[in-house]
Each structure stands twice: as C-alpha cells, then as structure tokens.
C-alpha cells in the first residue's frame, strides 16, 4: 500500500450533516426513521426494494428537487454543440471529432484508428471511421442495435468486446463487419440483471484478461456476494475471479503503465449530504484481497450513517485521491501519449459526468490527477471545462481515451458527440 496516499478528511460527518441546515441530531433522526433498523439481511427481495436510486433520500424540500435525469435520445446537431464554451489549458486546442452518436459512452480504438463507442440508453454501438470526409466530418456507422445498455466496449486482437447489462459479447474481425450484420459470440453471462448500476465499463488488461465490474444494485445497501465488485476472467469468459470488493459502482479504469496496477473511479453514495462523500480514485495493489469500503466506509474517512456502525474506515483500503462530492467520476485513462507536454506523462485523465445529487452542481468536466515523483497523486486539476454553465449542463463527459496520435478523445452522452483535445499545431 506504499503508493497510496491516505486522503485527509475535509470535514467531519457531524459538520457535513450540519451543512444540511437541519442540525446533526435532527438530520440523523429523520434518516433513521425512514430506514429499517436491521442492517444485514442480503435477501434478494430486500436488495431489490432498495434498488431505487432515490433510496435513502431524506425528507425535505430541497432534497425533493434532486433526481437523476438521463440525457436526450437524439444527438445534438454539430452546429449546436457547446464547442465555444469549452476551455482547455493554454497551448491545447479542442475540436469536434465526431457528432451524431446519440448517447455516446465508453470508447475504444483499433490500431487502424477506428473508434468504437458504446451507449447506455439507445441500445447501439457505433464505429467512427478514422478519416474525415471532404466536409470535415467522420462517418459514423452503427454496428449493432437493439442491445440492452451496451455501455462497455473493448477492442483486442481484431475483435470488439461489447458489454450489455448482463451479457458480454465478442464481435470477431470487426474491421470487416462494420455494416451491422455481424453475429457476436457470447463470452460471459454469469452476471446479475439488476438495472441499478447494471451498465458496464469493460477493459482488457496487460495480463490479457477481461475486467468486468458489477455495481451495487441500489444506492446504499449491503450488497449480495455477487455485487459491488470487479471481476477478471480469461478472454473466453472462463476462470472468473473477484479482484476487488466494496466497490459501489466503477465506470472507468485503466492500468498504470509503470506499475501495471489497476486504477479505478468509484461513485460514492447519494443522500448523505450535499458535500460528502467524494467519488474515489482507487488502486488495486493486492488483487482479490482489498475491500474498498462500500457500504461501510465512504471516501476513506467516515463510516456510513446506517451501515458503518461497528466498523472503522481503517478496515478498508482508502482511496488514492478524492474526486469531488457526487461528481459522477466515470471514464479514466493514463496519458500514455507523447503529444502533450512532459508534465502530462502518466497523468490520469478522469471524465466527471457531473453531479445530480447536489443543489449546486459539481463536475461536468475532465480533470487530471497529477502523479508526484513518489507515484502518489500530487493534485487533481481541471483540464477540460465548460460543460457546466449557470448550474445547467450543456454537455456531460463520460469517457476519455488517448488516441493513437496522442490527442485525448472525450465522449459526451448528453450531446452524442466526441471531442478531440490536442496540443500544439
């Protein structure tokens, strides 16, 4: 655990509860009344009842105005994309790479530059051809339709792996099957069917194994043994094993190019407070042995108001960095290119989709976690901003990807677009 920096508590739970404006004692009492006293039973019925994203919401006027809202099913026309609002550091340039990909989510790129993009709400997987046409636009092909929340995509050895909510498929020789007629091979389906946190980010590691997360089936509950974890398996779906537990919902991970350790984002629970918990940036240093805290400990610093009793955060692996309260930190990649200045080498880019569980929205940007000389995270800084305007989203970043040319691609599911951030030129 030497490479993990233990985050400092920004504020105590009592102080955070006081932020609700209700007073800590009153606030907790109200919460306790609406949640059953028994903490343990992982019976499936119980878990399903708690599958509601709003479970755990306190009574109260301001809280009643907060709810997750999915983005539109139609892509924004290119002329109406919020490009003029987007900001990048000096020397960088942001442009529209592709548009017309409604609900664009996870991205993966083939060696020939073809970009594959999954979706969460429209059932489609897209391929963006690498060469722009004479009109400057890249052709977008729909290579699959009618899938159930095909959020996850991973290209490997000529094949495209696609993760639906409860099935993972492999499309062989995908480069020659971009017309949408390809028949996939089932790789793995020993997965729960819960809708809550059921959509998946997937990736194939340097160990040539497929990594698959399974989120908690609700906001806050004691998850069944099959949930709130990351699994890895052989590329044919065999020999699956759990490599991390206590993971509420990760929708982004990548491997440190130097240590080969897996770093992942994890979305914190809702409804404790406007200001806590933070989403987490975590590192797996001992596969199969670490528990990252959910539902007992959040952000490495405080125990859950309901499930934390009898536990201490010292029982669990603390995050390497905190990513902001309710920011919905999703896609994550190490910068392995050479186009950006040296300071960006091996930095971690994180797409923060943006909060819904806060009155004043937070996130809606791409941040950079800078590694210090000791390998720890030295600072988390803004990189691509401007999606949040006057407490409203004009776009919502989902995933980041270091393109073959060293530029950074960013998907936006609200507008159905891909942006490209480049340096120089």
């Amino acid at each position, binding site marked *: 655990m030497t490479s993990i920096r233990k985050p400092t508590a920004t504020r105590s739970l009592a102080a955070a509860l006081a932020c609700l404006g209700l007073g800590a004692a009153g606030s907790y009492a109200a919460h306790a009344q609406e949640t059953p006293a028994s903490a343990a039973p992982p019976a499936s019925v119980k878990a399903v009842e708690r599958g509601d994203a709003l479970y755990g919401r306190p009574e109260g006027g301001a809280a009643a105005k907060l709810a997750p*809202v999915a983005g539109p099913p139609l892509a924004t026309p290119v002329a109406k994309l919020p490009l003029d609002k987007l900001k990048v550091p000096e020397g960088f340039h942001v442009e529209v790479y592709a548009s017309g990909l409604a609900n664009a989510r996870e991205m993966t790129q083939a060696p020939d530059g073809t970009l594959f993009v999954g979706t969460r709400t429209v059932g489609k997987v897209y391929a963006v051809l690498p060469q722009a046409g004479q009109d400057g636009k890249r052709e977008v092909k729909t290579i699959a339709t009618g899938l159930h929340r095909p959020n996850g995509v991973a290209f490997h050895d000529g094949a495209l792996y696609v993760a639906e909510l409860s099935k993972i498929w492999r499309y062989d020789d995908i480069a020659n099957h971009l017309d949408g007629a390809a028949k996939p091979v089932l790789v793995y389906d020993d997965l729960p069917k819960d809708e809550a946190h059921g959509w998946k980010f997937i990736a194939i590691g340097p160990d040539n194994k497929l990594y698959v997360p399974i989120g908690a089936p609700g906001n806050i509950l004691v998850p069944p043994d099959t949930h709130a974890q990351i699994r890895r398996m052989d590329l044919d779906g065999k020999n699956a094993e759990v490599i991390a537990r206590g993971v509420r919902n990760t929708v982004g991970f990548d491997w440190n190019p130097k240590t080969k350790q897996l770093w992942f984002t994890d979305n914190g629970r809702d409804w404790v407070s406007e200001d806590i918990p933070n989403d987490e940036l975590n590192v797996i240093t001992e596969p199969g042995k670490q528990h990252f805290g959910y539902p007992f400990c959040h952000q490495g610093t405080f125990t859950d108001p309901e499930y934390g009793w009898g536990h201490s955060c010292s029982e669990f692996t603390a995050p390497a960095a905190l990513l902001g309260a309710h920011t919905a930190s999703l896609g994550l990649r190490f910068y392995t290119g050479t186009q950006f200045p040296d300071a960006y080498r091996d930095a971690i880019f994180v797409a923060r989709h943006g909060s819904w569980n806060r009155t004043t929205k937070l996130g809606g940007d791409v941040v950079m976690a800078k590694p210090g000389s000791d390998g720890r995270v030295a600072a988390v800084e803004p990189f691509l901003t401007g999606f949040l305007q006057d407490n409203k989203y004009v776009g919502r970043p989902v995933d980041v990807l270091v393109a073959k040319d060293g530029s950074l691609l960013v998907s936006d599911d609200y507008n159905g677009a891909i942006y490209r951030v480049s340096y120089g030129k």
Partner: protein
Amino acid sequence: MGGIQRAIRGPATALGTLVAGAALAAPDAAMQERLAPCIGCHGNGTSETEGVPSLGGQLPDYVVTQLFQFREKQREAPPMNDVAAGFSDDDLRAYADAVATLPPPSRSGTPADPALADRAQALVAKHQCTSCHGSDLAGRDAIPRIRAQREEYLAKALAGYKSNARPGYDPAMNEVAQGLSEADIKDLAAYVSRL
C-alpha cells in the same frame, strides 16, 4: 371533449387524416396538420380511448424520448412502432413540440375515496414519486406528467416496468416498480388517475 371526433383505434386511423373540430392550442396550421392523426386516437389532450394515454401537458423532452423508443422498438406499443418507424430525428422533435401544445387532461370520474387516498399517498411517499415527477405529479423535463392520466394505462405502465416488458429509457422506473405489489399498482393507478 367538446367537438373532438371520437377516435377509432388502429394503425390506419393513426396514420390517416382526421377531423379535429375543437379549437387547438397549436399556434399554426402546420402544427395542426401534424397533430391531427395524434388527436385522432389520443384526443385533444385528454384521451377517451381505453388503453390510449392522454398526451396533454406532456413536455417535449418526454414525448421525444417515447417517440424515439417507438422508432427503435425499445418500447413495443402498437400501432406507435409502425407510426414512428419512418420518422427522422427532426420529425421526432417536431411531433414532440406539437404534442406539447395540447392542454393537460381533465380528470373524469369520481374522486378517490378517503381509504384509497390514504393507501396511495403512503405509496407515493414510500416510493418517492414526487422526487422525479414533481410535487403535483405534473412531470418535468423528460419525466412524464402522470396526474389525471388514464387509470388502466397507468396500471399497465407500472406492470410493464415491474416485469421489464417496458424497459424505461432510463431504468429508474424499472427499479422502483420492483417493490410494487399488484395491489399497490391498482391503488396507485386509481389514485393518480383521479388527481
């Protein structure tokens, strides 16, 4: 429903030309023309046809999402899948904007009796319906208005979410509905339709 012609169900009707007798909320002739086949089945804001929802008072973000789901066959609801099959994205937006001009449905029938109201209000609180649908259940953004919707339509929608026969655009309702019993669904539909 004043002078609105009583709708006849079926795809031919939905696609056909219909006479809308009452004054429309739509501001121009093009929108009236676009709305005519919709009104044929759905009524001028208030549906009088069993199984066919009232569309009045729905916001364009919700309507465009449903039309999209019909076109993509994510939501099976004949004849709407055939109706929407040939629509372009611009068509979806135009129809959604037009439908959003229809006046909110008016409640018909007797109000909920006190025992039903008590049971249903407890369910509304427990499942936090107002958090997304608004304090008066009139909807917002892409979340539908459900107050004064047709009772049998509400019951069917909730049952569809519970069985996952109707996968929501966002899975929120599929999650919520898992905790509803058949009796809960009956009570909620009866109560909300009478608001």
